[in-house]
């Protein structure tokens, strides 16, 4: 198991050091600094073995978090734990920075004592932690016996992510379907790979211990119902989505720990008692029938050895009534660029020498439109034998629909003990499609 946990600043100075196991000595702190943080080379692996001691590290801005062990630990678990620790810290004091860590070091030690015992990760749900790690030491006396046992049963219980007795005057929930669409396209317009990775993020403000059921246009579910001849009246377009494709094929999905996985496995129904506030209900991935919101058509011509002509056309490919936003096209330029002249029909384009790219920004663009940019790039003559690697043209955008075609069909809420019903809950659904790694080779 994890033998120790260290946090360093960018210089390699230790900000937090907590040792859980006797086999990890103080010298381990220095070993990581010398061999990884101060190493001349770029990091070649997130796992480093130095003198039979293994170091796992992740970096958040310029802060290094390292877990260290001498045993054959579950490596995936160690990384998941490090990410989780970052989440917890962010939830407590915001951005992970040197200043914040120094300001909260007592809190961090308290958290580390709680979420890692002898190197075994313990309950690390922020909701539960915040009930008893408050940095207000005096609290311990104020708690009543009931409060105490409520805390411990939540920390260890089956539903560690929610406490009893939550009350809201207005029962409300927000569902965000956030998708990032990833594309790698050849210069000829052939799709080399494309996938959507999506997340369903929920903000719930519900009283009591509500039992929820979530439904979407999952092909497997729809096909099953189709065969049975019944239609799900309750769920049908209750929450909006009525247009577009009937159903989508989901390659794979993963769920927040509140979802009953065995039920999903057997019936493919998504049922759960949600945490209070914001959390990620599920993640999913699709690869079939993806709507690619933009098509990039590059044309790069080398004119002699000192000039490049670049022309890029972008075409929007969705309903004309919808508007895409925050469009940005990034066209890489060679390192020996001396000057660039750009002409674009729409938006603003600028050559950014420090980034070795022409950045073309368009605020808004409706569907089924196209726009174009052309640029002349002057090159300094070099005797560098190596050819320019021609990095791909990348694109950023945001569209108000889900490129995978996913639709929320229903989200039903049952709370048998309190007197509010599914109809009393106010529900909001929003779809946002963003570019992930959206690249076209040129």
């Amino acid at each position, binding site marked *: *198991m994890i033998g120790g946990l260290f946090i360093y600043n960018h210089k390699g*100075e230790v900000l937090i050091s907590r040792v859980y*196991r*006797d086999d990890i000595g*103080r010298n381990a702190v220095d070993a990581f600094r010398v061999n990884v943080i101060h190493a001349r080379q*770029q990091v070649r*692996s997130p*796992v480093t*073995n130095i003198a039979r001691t*293994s170091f796992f*590290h992740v970096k958040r801005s310029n802060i290094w978090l390292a877990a260290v062990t*001498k*045993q054959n*630990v*579950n*490596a*995936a*678990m160690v*990384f998941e734990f490090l*990410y989780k620790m970052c989440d917890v810290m962010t939830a407590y004091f915001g951005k992970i920075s040197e200043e914040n860590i*120094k300001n*909260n070091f007592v*809190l961090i*030690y*308290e958290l580390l*004592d709680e979420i890692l*015992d002898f190197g*075994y990760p*313990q*309950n690390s749900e922020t909701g539960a932690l*915040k009930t008893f790690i*408050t940095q207000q*030491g*005096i609290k*311990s006396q104020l*708690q009543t016996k009931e409060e*105490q*046992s409520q805390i*411990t*049963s939540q*920390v*260890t*219980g089956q539903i560690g992510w929610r406490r009893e007795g*939550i009350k809201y005057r207005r029962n409300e929930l927000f569902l965000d379907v956030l998708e990032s669409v990833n594309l790698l396209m050849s210069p000829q317009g052939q799709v*080399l790979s494309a996938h959507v990775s999506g997340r369903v993020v929920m903000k719930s403000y519900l009283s009591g211990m509500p039992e929820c059921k979530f439904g979407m246009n999952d092909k497997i579910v729809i096909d099953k119902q189709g065969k049975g001849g019944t239609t799900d009246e309750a769920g049908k377009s209750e929450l909006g989505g009525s247009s577009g494709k009937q159903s989508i094929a989901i*390659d*794979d*999905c993963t*769920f927040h*720990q509140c979802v009953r*996985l*065995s039920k999903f*496995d057997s019936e493919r129904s998504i049922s759960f008692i949600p945490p*209070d506030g914001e959390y990620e209900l*599920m*993640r999913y*991935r699709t690869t079939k029938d993806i709507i690619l919101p933009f098509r990039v058509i590059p044309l790069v011509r080398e004119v002699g050895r000192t000039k490049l002509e670049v022309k890029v056309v972008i075409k929007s490919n969705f309903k004309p009534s919808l508007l895409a936003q925050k469009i940005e096209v990034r066209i890489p330029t060679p390192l020996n660029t001396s000057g660039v002249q750009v002409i674009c029909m729409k938006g603003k384009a600028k050559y950014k020498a420090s980034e070795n790219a022409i950045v073309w920004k368009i605020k808004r663009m409706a569907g089924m439109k196209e726009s174009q940019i052309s640029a002349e790039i002057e090159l300094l003559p070099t005797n560098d*034998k190596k050819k320019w*690697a021609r990095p791909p043209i990348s694109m950023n955008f945001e569209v108000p629909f889900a490129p995978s075609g996913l639709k929320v069909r229903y989200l039903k809420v049952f709370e048998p003990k309190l007197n509010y019903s599914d109809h009393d809950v106010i529900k909001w659904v929003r779809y946002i499609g963003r570019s992930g*790694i959206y690249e076209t080779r040129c």
Partner: protein
Amino acid sequence: MEWASQLCENRGLGSKMTDSKYFTTTKKGEIFELKAELNSDKKEKKKEAVKKVIASMTVGKDVSALFPDVVNCMQTDNLELKKLVYLYLMNYAKSQPDMAIMAVNTFVKDCEDPNPLIRALAVRTMGCIRVDKITEYLCEPLRKCLKDEDPYVRKTAAVCVAKLHDINAQLVEDQGFLDTLKDLISDSNPMVVANAVAALSEIAESHPNSNLLDLNPQTINKLLTALNECTEWGQIFILDCLANYTPRDDRESQSICERVTPRLSHANSAVVLSAVKVLMKFMEMLPKDLDYYGTLLKKLAPPLVTLLSAEPELQYVALRNINLIVQKRPEILKHEMKVFFVKYNDPIYVKLEKLDIMIRLASQANIAQVLAELKEYATEVDVDFVRKAVRAIGRCAIKVEQSAERCVSTLLDLIQTKVNYVVQEAIVVIKDIFRKYPNKYESVIATLCENLDSLDEPEARAAMIWIVGEYAERIDNADELLESFLEGFHDESTQVQLQLLTAIVKLFLKKPTETQELVQQVLSLATQDSDNPDLRDRGYIYWRLLSTDPVAAKEVVLAEKPLISEETDLIEPTLLDELICHIGTLASVYHKPPSAFVEGGRGVQHKRLPARAGSGESAESPDVGQAVSAVSDAPPAVIPSQGDLLGDLLNLDLAPPTSNVPPVPSSMQMGAMDLLGGGLDSLMGDESETSASHYRTEVQSPQPPECSERELGGDVGGSPAMGVSLGGAPVGMPAGLGAAPAVGGGLGDLFDLGGGVGVTAGSYIPPKTVWLPAMKAKGLEISGTFARRSGVIHMDLSFTNKAMSVMTDFAIQFNKNSFGLAPAGPLQVLTPLSPNQTVDVSLPLSTTGPVMKMEPLNNLQVAVKNNIDVFYFSCQYPISLLFVEDGKMDRQVFLATWKDIPSENEAQFQIKDCHLNSDAASNKLQGSNIFTVAKRTVDTQDMLYQSVKLTNGIWMLAELRIQTGNPNSTDLELSVKCRAPEVSQYVYQCYELILRN
């Protein structure tokens, strides 16, 4: 909830002005000031001071001098302060054990606190203080906490048992904590169960043979129930524990799999990977024709792909594991090539791993896409990545024949870029392509030759030289090219020197007229001016070959080359199986067994995959083998390896390493060396390859003028690699070789049967044990035992092929041993031995071989050869093997001899707990040729006088006393008298063995 976040905000504001300042105090006299503050009356001031102490501790300052002052702050109602003091204690208690005892009272008191959070905190912290005196005080509170009414306390106490075990294992056992911990597996709270499982698993690791984690269907059921309810981390502990269980049959295995599969949809990647581990392991037991088996295979792919959308560090862990999974079960991901395409922004460690998997998944169906990608990668910036991409193109050519032409033209394009490392890498892989497809792409040689000057890496130089030598007849100026390398011969690396030597000899054999001078030059450079024994020896061999029989030389040097393998870096199957059992862990990231990087004995026992139902099938249907070999869609070819000593000699023309074939650690012990001096030559005697036998005769023929016999011998002695086959050259075939009747596995079995049925009390034959594990012998596993049947000594062997290629040409040889055991005939293995096949062989032995005293006396060192390599192992035989049938002594002679042998030679032994009466014992012993000469009964004691004769004529006399009156005393007493007293002990061992079985 609101109040909590409110408080947090307040604190955030407040602390901004306070906490970070603790890091800045560096002035002198700091300790003194802190001391004063710690002893202050004001609570706030105290707290501030403790914070400063902790900050100093964090940055590595020694604040242990403040120990008593900090401990004084422990008695407080302020939980935050208490935690800080505890943190300090955990750090310094070990260095101040006497003062740490001051804290005990507070701990004990806190363990009784009404607040469960404080009880848990106390027991948690106490377990982290590694001071013996404190540990003693821990036992009682821990016992209470393990049975606490609050689950939070119980889950903390469960982990505390593991802590205590780490400090003092004996104490934990004595106090009965292990049983309490086992009980917690049935706890009603899932988190308590999970922590108990984690603690038990850890404790069990340090007692590999204990039955601590007594996994049976009931406990498994409890674990599976808890699995659905506990935290993500708890699920990982439970799944990792489940993976250690071996289901009783395929039905149990399937039902566990069914209950584990839902975990594949968990958001936590570690839960997913641990579930994959359980499934991959238990799948081994499912019959392949089962529908469920196919379903399971299909279910595994999507979650594995999803892991690739996790954060890069996790992607890396996932990819390292996928690399294993793809080798074990290529069918799972064969359609998922695209997800392994490299993204421009991937960190380099992700890129390199993806590339590895792309090559493994490449097939005829997707090769066009793969090639297009690889070409793209070859223009990237990172040197390692580009090199690997170029190499990958070469691998594709070798793996998918249809793509070879395109690969070659892609490589030529890349050579045109003139980027130095790209060119070098391309030449290395083109050499492999030439070997795989001879006489097909030689038209590109001219282009390659143009780049001769830019090659500065040994591997590329060696590859280029190989190409020039191999195609010397088509390159007009081959001699000039090779000569140009010769100028700096001594500065080249060994790899290049060896290659240059061989290439020039090839050139000479092809164009003898113009190159006489060149070959003379290189031979003298190699033999006279070099300190490298390998190079020298190879030089001498060529020299002799060329000077005595050029025709033979041609046959040897220009011989047909063995095929090169289609897969590179394949992990050896036994290791792969072990690593599959470690999916998700560091071992799977390093691709090394835990023993390679974990200190001490903890958790390093080898794990094995369970066998499929009906385990007898391994010999009939090489199921698993097929799954593995399906990686390449065709039976894999011979894997070339530098460690292949015999191959090296026979071909003399081994190309430089074709790939990153890991150097095979030599399993040879130096002690075993001299015995093989003569042995191996005779092993080579049954080589069917003509070139080999040619070579052998050549070596024995009169010496070339340049070097004397002695000189050669001396050189050879210095070089282990060559010494094996050259030392003591003039050896003929061993006496019986080839003459003895063939005894196949089947016949051996018949004998076995006969022994069991015909003779009532046959001699005892111990069960077969593994003598040579597959790990040490490139996939060949040998287990065996010894038996004496109808007066003939047999060595019963089982050969199991756990590698992926077919094994042939088996031969066996013994070292000199105490009783002159030697094979009475050649080893008759019905070859070829295909992957995963086992063959049983019974080898008759004679006792007329050379004698040398071994330690222990019954030790036997054996060398076994196959087409892959020579392997060495040693085993011990029961000395009863050597007891001959005519060992019954006359009574009078017995009496006289007994008196004659001095009493110093008498040895006494005890055989405990043997429930045999004298007749039964006598019968049993007679089966192994220990004869009862006389029997005498005195009071309640039977005395048997027995005689034994060994194959070398030594007599042994024994007196065996058996109690008859008292049923409770079941110990036998044995006195052995012999002229060679060192044998007595082994005779006693035989008595033990025979009487107990």
